[in-house]
């Protein structure tokens, strides 16, 4: 017999290969890749579009690449998480391919983590391509760029941010065994934290809660309030902003982030913003990384536990 007791690594890599081939051949993933490149191209072409409208020449911008977080924004993280994680468990059950897969001599733990690792590798490769594209494009369109050595921090932050969304999609998918519910559940969380949370935070002054929830987080300002004379620079505290915040910390480590709420009954425009509290940028970063790690570990652990016990009735 040609079968030997294969090492755990060989089986793990077989699952990774299986999943990566699935990921890169999905129409959804290829579509998302096109969207991401389109968004990046829009970022790059923004200066030229404005120039065409106003007639003014495109000014060199040495901080374009670092300032734009190489084109990766919260919604992109969310969409990439959906297209890479939707299939990890739920689609296997939906399509019935879980039956021959789990009949192989590979433990469910190996299958689960092999698939998760494949999602990570797929994202890593995709984000690397996007970053190279944006860096070269930024250089070509806006001239020589500053602080390009910090681009890997954008990559690290983007991976962190997406992994949170992956763990959310994975959790919904494993519990429901439905890709649709996984996508809709994650969309619900994204809408809740991004839109409803932001509105409630601004109006009720309870935005600090968003700091402890995955997503865009609370919004604070450095150097002044959100509007009016001496307007400040906006800083998002959430897990979606780990990359930009890390870069900001290296470039401006003394930044203090101040939070405001809208004073609905203010008689004059200058009194619209009520100052709530301030904290150093380092605290913002540490909190968002801790939140990211805790949610990721908890959601992945629950998904893994459920998958290990799942009976294949399909």
């Amino acid at each position, binding site marked *: 017999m*040609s*079968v030997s007791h294969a090492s755990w690594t060989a089986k793990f890599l077989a699952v990774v290969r299986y999943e990566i081939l699935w990921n890169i051949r999905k129409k959804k993933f290829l579509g998302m890749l096109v969207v991401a490149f389109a968004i990046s191209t829009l970022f790059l072409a923004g200066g030229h579009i404005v120039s065409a409208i106003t007639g003014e020449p495109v000014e060199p911008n040495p901080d374009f690449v670092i300032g734009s977080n190489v084109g990766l924004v919260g919604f992109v993280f969310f969409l990439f998480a959906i297209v890479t994680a939707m299939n990890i468990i739920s689609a296997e059950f939906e399509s019935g*391919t879980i*039956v*021959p897969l789990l*009949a192989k001599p590979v*433990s469910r*733990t190996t299958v689960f983590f092999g698939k998760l690792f494949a999602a990570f590798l797929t994202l890593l490769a995709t984000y690397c391509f996007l970053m190279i594209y944006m860096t070269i494009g930024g250089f070509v369109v806006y001239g020589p760029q500053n602080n390009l050595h910090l681009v890997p921090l954008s990559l690290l932050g983007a991976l962190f941010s997406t992994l949170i969304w992956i763990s959310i999609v994975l959790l919904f998918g494993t519990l429901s065994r439905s890709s649709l519910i996984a996508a809709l559940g994650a969309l619900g969380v994204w809408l809740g934290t991004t839109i409803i949370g932001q509105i409630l935070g601004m109006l009720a002054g309870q935005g600090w809660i968003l700091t402890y929830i995955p997503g865009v987080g609370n919004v604070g300002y450095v150097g002044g309030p959100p509007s009016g004379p001496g307007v400040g620079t906006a800083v998002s505290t959430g897990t979606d902003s780990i990359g930009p915040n890390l870069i900001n910390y290296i470039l401006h480590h003394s930044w203090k982030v101040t939070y405001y709420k809208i004073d609905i009954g203010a008689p004059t425009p200058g009194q619209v913003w009520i100052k709530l509290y301030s904290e150093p940028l380092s605290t913002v970063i540490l909190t968002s990384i801790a939140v990211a790690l805790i949610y990721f570990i908890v959601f992945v652990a629950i998904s893994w536990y459920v998958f290990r016990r799942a*009976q294949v009735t399909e």
Partner: protein
Amino acid sequence: MEFVIETTNLTKKYGSLVAVDKLDLKVKADTIHGFLGPNGAGKTTTLKILVGLLKLDGGSVSVLGQDIGWDKPDVRSRIGYMPELPKLPKHLKGRELLDIYGRMYGMAKEAREKQVPKLLDMVGLRERGNDLIGTYSKGMQQRLGMAQALLNEPELVILDEPGLGLDPVGMVEVRDLMKEMAKEGVTVFLSSHLLHEVEQVCTHVTIINKGVEVASGTLKQISAKVRGPVTIEAEVDKLSKTVIKKVKELSFVTDVSEDGKKLLVEVKTRDDVRSEVSQAITAGGGIVIDMNLKGESLEDIFMDLLAKRKKGRL
């Protein structure tokens, strides 16, 4: 090891429904063992328990001398399993799938390079090996499902309805393959509702209904258990009273009756005594045109068993 599959009081419930009820199943090594039952009898559930896809709720299961436990993949490296209408990942090519599954079995590169083309050739998919499975017909997917079950040169092959989706030529090929495997010392455990298929290849049969074993043994043993006396139906030319007298004189004959040109001979033995009956007819001056054992097909036995079970006589 006398039995490659041995279950004791195997019980599986889905809520209040008892799918398998205290099943004692014994499959001898080096046999082709048929597993028969109507739809919903509990066949697929039993097979899924054997390969670790479902948890048992009671009793014990030993496969190839090992307790199957839960999520213990080692024993699966010695088993080949073909699910009912196997759902294989459509994003992979046939050759890729076999290669990846081979890696999961721990097969070395050389072994995979030898075994994969051999199996593709055997199931008639050599020309389509580099096409995506999503482009395969149902019959082709069924044949690839068979190939993946034989990839690891298993000691035990578990086949769930292997004839489904195959054309008559494909069915004959699968039957020949099963016979070939048995010759090479592989035990085949075959679940099917195609009685004709089981009858042609199986040496042993277990029949279940509503999760309960109705009968188990060789076809001959089961037939004896169910039908009592066997009737030989002979079409005879020059049928006369002398012919009837000669046949009646045979010690194992219990009754003889006429039906036109046909002679119905009821015998008390389970042995094939057609040649003795034929000699007696010839001795009486008759000419045997045709002779059959009446009601000995597996289908007759199966229907009788289920009917008797319904009436509470078994």
